[in-house]
């Protein structure tokens, strides 16, 4: 825990992990030493279901630039989705 940058949000959705699809109930967002990415620190995004145990997890580790690009594209897709649904 070198940065102590950690966020948690409750959400509803699904994710596919090694055991197949499962209901996602929480997301962890952190910025700390990654497990796999070749960075000293990385943005970690974990989709989990705490009721199903630690293995119910889909994880990504991104560099900051990539993470911001992802956020922008998600926002753009959601803006378009809003226009589609509201039409």
């Amino acid at each position, binding site marked *: *825990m*070198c*940065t*102590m940058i*950690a*966020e*948690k949000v409750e959400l509803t959705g699904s994710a596919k992990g090694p055991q197949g699809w499962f209901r996602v109930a*929480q997301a*962890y967002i*952190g910025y*700390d*030493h990654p*497990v796999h990415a*070749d*960075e*000293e*620190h990385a943005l*970690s995004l*974990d989709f*989990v279901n*705490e009721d199903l*145990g*630690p*293995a119910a*997890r889909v*994880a990504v580790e991104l560099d900051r630039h990539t993470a911001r690009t992802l956020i922008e594209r998600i926002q753009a897709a959601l803006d378009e989705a809003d226009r589609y649904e509201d039409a």
Partner: protein
Amino acid sequence: MIDTGAYEGMIAETTVIVGHAGDHINAYMARPLGPGPYPAVLVFHHLPGWDRWYRETTRRFAAEGYLAICPDLYHRQGTGQPDDVAAKVRAEGGVADDQVVGDAQGCVDLLRALPQSNGKVAGFGTCSGGRHAYLAACRLDAFDGLINCWGGRIVTDADDVTEKQPVAPVDYTADLSCPVLGLFGNEDSSPSPEHVDALEEALKTHGKAYEFHRYDGAGHGFFYDDRPAAYHAASAVDGWAKVWHFLQRTTA
């Protein structure tokens, strides 16, 4: 030191220790096969969890003639793949310092009770494990030496403490009761060279025995040979040599 004519063997296995609040937690233990007496090393794992590197490191200490134990400090958050458990711990803001100290006391009690023990115990840790080793060596009068490898957040700002980690370990330095070996990369940002300076100043202020080695070109985690971006071979080779020399001096 390898003697090609000598018998060598070890046993390494998962066991259970009695940790903080009487909780039973898993621990990985490796020890030489023989009557001893052997010194011991309590190995504090890092943020990525109770993982393969830490099991290998625990066996490495045993191969060098130490009773080595590495408790799963994240055991209470569940079991499974180390990174899955570590993700949960990270989201919860880490584990409580009091809990880590209690788990360390349990390990020391076990190590000293072993019939092969010579009564000496050193602490070793990297990253958050370095912080936990420093914390335990300050709060427990139980260690004969402390090896802090790039422990992060030993030195923190006053507004960076949390309910689980209410005191920056550096503020316990007056209570430290054993010599310290510190290994740091000058390219690291946590701890940064300024953090290392502050820690060294605290050790000087309180008259503690210590030796720090700072490596140019090395960043965070320069021992991790499974992490190409972190591993820094020249620093790692020299750092491990410093570890063995320090243990020989403090725990023989």
